[in-house]
């Protein structure tokens, strides 16, 4: 488990950060100043997709040996990489949708910087918090994408399965 955590911590933290951002997006979009506004379904949907993809990727790491196919050692990796790319793309898109949809809020405060309700400030601060969550997640995943991505157990199993010597 420790090895697993050591290898997957970026994805786990990214998933948690995305989840946190998702919760903030939902809460800030449905309460306070933005209550009543159209719900930002794209950002929410993409965030959920990202969390699911990351979860699947982590699960794949745990159970990667079960789907590793003899003679095609890269399939697990390809699926894992695909999940990673999907999660990155989803988070980036969610971040974009959040930014675009909340930009008027920022502009409202920026252009007329006095006498706006504190609730508007709260909404903006929550938006910034959500953005920070997405940014942390995506940066971690970008780092992850440059790193070796197979857990030790999987590596072992794969190595055993895939090694020509075993044949």
């Amino acid at each position: 488990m420790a090895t697993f955590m050591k290898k997957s911590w970026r994805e786990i933290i990214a998933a948690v950060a995305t989840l946190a951002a998702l919760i903030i997006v939902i809460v800030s979009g449905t309460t306070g100043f933005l209550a009543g506004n159209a719900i930002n379904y794209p950002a929410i949907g993409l965030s959920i997709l990202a969390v699911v993809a990351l979860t699947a990727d982590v699960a794949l790491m745990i159970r990667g040996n079960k789907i590793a196919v003899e003679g095609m050692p890269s399939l697990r990796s390809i699926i894992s990489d695909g999940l990673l790319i999907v999660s990155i793309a989803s988070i980036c898109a969610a971040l974009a949708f959040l930014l675009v949809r909340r930009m008027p809020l920022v502009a409202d405060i920026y252009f007329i910087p006095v006498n706006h309700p504190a609730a508007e400030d709260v909404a903006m601060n929550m938006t910034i918090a959500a953005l920070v969550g997405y940014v942390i997640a995506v940066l971690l995943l970008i780092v992850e994408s440059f790193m070796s991505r197979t857990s030790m157990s999987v590596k072992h199993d794969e190595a055993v399965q895939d090694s020509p010597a075993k044949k």
Partner: protein
Amino acid sequence: MASHSRIWRGITAIGALLLSLAMVAAVTLEMYRTSVDAALGTRSQRTVTQSTKNDKDTWNYQSSFKTAKEAYDGFKNFALKEGEETNVLLKNDNQALPLSKNAKITMFGVRSYAPVYGSSGGSIADGYSTVQITEAFKEKGFQINPSMLSAYESYFKGQKWTKPKFGSGLIPEYESITSYNNPHELSLNELKRLNPNYASEYKDYNDAAVVVVGRPAGENGDGYTPGQAGLADGVHTVTGNILSLSDEEMAIIHEAEANFKKVIVLVNSTNPMEIANLQDDANIDAIMWIGFPGAYGFYGVADTLNGTVNPSGALGDVFAKNSALAPAMANYGNIPWKNAHDFSEDAAVNSYLIQAEGIYTGYRYYETRYADIVSGRGGAQASAGTYAAADGTVATSDGTWDYNNEVTYPFGYGLSYTTFERKLNSVQVNGDKKSATASVTVTNTGKVAGKTPIQLYASAPYTQYDRDNGVEKSAIELIDFEKTDILQPGESQTIEMKVDLSVLASYDAKTAKTFIMDPGRYYFSLGDNVHEALNNVLSAQGIQPEMTDTVTNNQSSRTANSQSVVDDTVQQWDVDGDVDSVTFAVSKSGQKITNKLSEGDYATDFNAFQPGTVTYLSRSNWEGTYPHTYEGLEATGRLAELLGNDFIKLKKNEDTSDIKFGDKSSSLTINDMKGASYDDERWGELIDKVTLQEYLDFAANAFHAIGGMPSIGLPDMTSDDGPGGSDSHLLSEGQYQGTPYADGEKYNKATRVAPSPVNLAYTWNKELAYENGQILMGESTLVLNLPIMIGPAMNLHRHAYNSRGVEYYSEDPVLSGYTGSAVVQGAQSKGTLVNVKHLAFNDQEINRSGIAVFMNEQKARELELRNFQQAFEGNGQPASFSQDKNKDKRYGEGARGVMTSYNRIGAVAPSANRSVMVDILRDEWGFKGYNVTDFTSISLKAAPKESTLAGTVAFCGFGPQGIDYWTVEGLSGDRDMLLAIKQNLHYALYALANSAALNGVNSSTHTVNVMTSWRIGYIVALVVAGAMVLAGLAGYIISIMRARKGIIRGVKSHETSAGESIVEDHNDNSSVTSKERN
């Protein structure tokens, strides 16, 4: 190979992030493209029109400027012209002024180096154009003491003028000395530290010491606060208020007095300053109010100081010894609702303002109380804290109210280098008693040429009926004004003034419930100022001159002006019979005028909600009714419901199938309606073509980029803030009839170059105001393609402490109303769709968004609304226009646009106050135009559905904020709402069709996007990021494929040699592991 796949994977990830950011940038830049253009000096969209046979019809408004140079010169020349007329000479002992043209002067005060050129926010002076005070003075021939100058130069060394957060280019002010609680004057010790020899050349530059004192002003921030609370730590002032001079400023003045025989003080403030000590100081020879002169205004100041120009300005506000003692100040600032926390924060329920002073603001208070005292009608007794001591400080014990302790310079005051004799030849009241013709002759009796304002006042009787019915009456009121031409010595000019007597009518909310004229004797009076006009009336009434002459006796400086002869300056008019509640009971549009603000949901009188709460100031009992601060009021019942800004329920299921939107059966376009009257029958057909979604989008995004309506061919439009010119655009973006200026790039200058609106009002020159509207707003519209200009700003000066007063004209509804009306007429002559702002009652910046402003109906109608009314009815035509048919033939068509205020009117959002927005604005005043909110967006603070029902056409901002019903589905079930939208479309399209919004529009017209630098930037970013993603994915796939081939090769290798082989996963660790296992 594994490391390759990782790299491609990483590139893909980075590309995805960059792509998303580039997309966000692209969307954001396009969304706020006009602001981006303003910030970067680009122009991202152009309207293209092909030439036709009827180009004259296409370009129905034509700019006077065909090149950027012509435009630059045109704006500059007008600013110079206005700058010469705005200065008000307040004191000129022993003819200290004018100075010689090459006088050697020493300039004192931090403001002598860094004066306030214009507003700090909201139509600021253009820093790119500004000629600094010292440069202007030197160019005009003055020789400035370099030693003193170097001290100030040292102080500001390394400091730069302010760059605003958005648009507006460059503010010619230093942030370090711009605040509302500290004048930031340098002490003598600081001067010594900056330049130990600062005083070394006093003797060489001793023709005069010129001291400049000033206070900044502008939008944003809370503005000025009276008393200790308004002073920064360590700041002490003469009267204890920030608007009087600080210890450091007085030390500078004393330094000048100690070392120079001639001391001249320039007052660089649009908030009336408390300068009685300067008036009384025999060592100060001259005082001149210069307000905020604008980018080139110090040329005019220099020319006035050296006598090239004879000063002809006059104060448009009273200068009190202690402005904080005006009765209006008893209720000012943050006075929170006791239960403010009970409300949704979105509704912006913060505080309230009970304007218990009634009609007695500005000179109406000081002159009326004075008149009552000298007439023996009471008013002399005053309680501690409500009147001024002789030195201008607050009297701390009960005593006697004395005009001389209250007023420094009365409304209308202003001296000249020559003398004038004024004669009121006659006043002929027309048979219907609605108007009169006054003939006035002015003769220059002095030795130099000059021009002067003609101030016509009237005094109406204050009767028992008035006392019984709570009708208040100012002892004297300005009813019209004109300005002479430049008169040579000995020359005379006679002007016929068409006087609208409705400005003299009083509103009786109790019995007649309309405007009334009392029976009795009326006096028409000329005066060099309001106090003199009143004294003339009092003398005509038999009040002994020694009792009346107060200001003139203690103002030896007034020797420059003529002393009025009572018989030549006063005419009387006797009205017999009962109280006349008929003559002014019907508006010019034919609407019956009756109570709208005294009861019901839209009342402005707080007593309508909580009877008996407020006692309004009455001249029948000055002492007993003097306002106190109304603190701790609680909003309950219907008042509380209204404050929530959600008080009309939206219906969901009404049958609205007969109300057409998006009808495609007609081929009519907005171009076919260019110049059409409001009553043109084709409007219905055109409006039916507009889809509901188009309207909702149009109404929801009325900031600087206003979307068009494709269904009727209405192009996208741009608008900008005024009132002093375009806030966001530069001449480098200019164009003439659709063709960009060839020389545009040489003129990175704005159009905000003229003196402040206060300065304009203080010229008392309607023709100049008309030209101001033509140039600053009208030409900004045509040169910069800005059909909608947010201005002029016309709220009254309720008191001296509103920092945004710089954008507004005056305390008086006639001076302000006629000045603003002339600006509107000038602007509309060039096609500007004006947004006269801020309707109504924007009396302070503190809590401006949401503050609930209450006053009785008499005050509302006789002051602020009467003021706005002039612009919406197109009143106040200059005498020269009515005598010359070749002048603007459309003068008199009222303003076609309005912007509402931030503050509530009564309990509700201003745009939702049906009484003001529909009953008065549209019905009584006949307004048919475009009504937009201030920057509220579609939010609860704008009460969008209630405002739509009250004729609001658009909401300034960025779309819905916290409002879920602003959709086709949300509104389609409410019949009243859809009918209101239809009506609002009619208002909006009529206003646009009669503006430059359709200038250059014909059947070929379309808008095209221009490839700007920022568009190139985001496109490149999109391409690069997109390429990264594609390259990353491609690289990854190739690397995987190669890896797989490698595996296969490896297997084959194993099969053939059974030797050492490396399984090459894309995971380099696994390869190691495999290797190990081998």
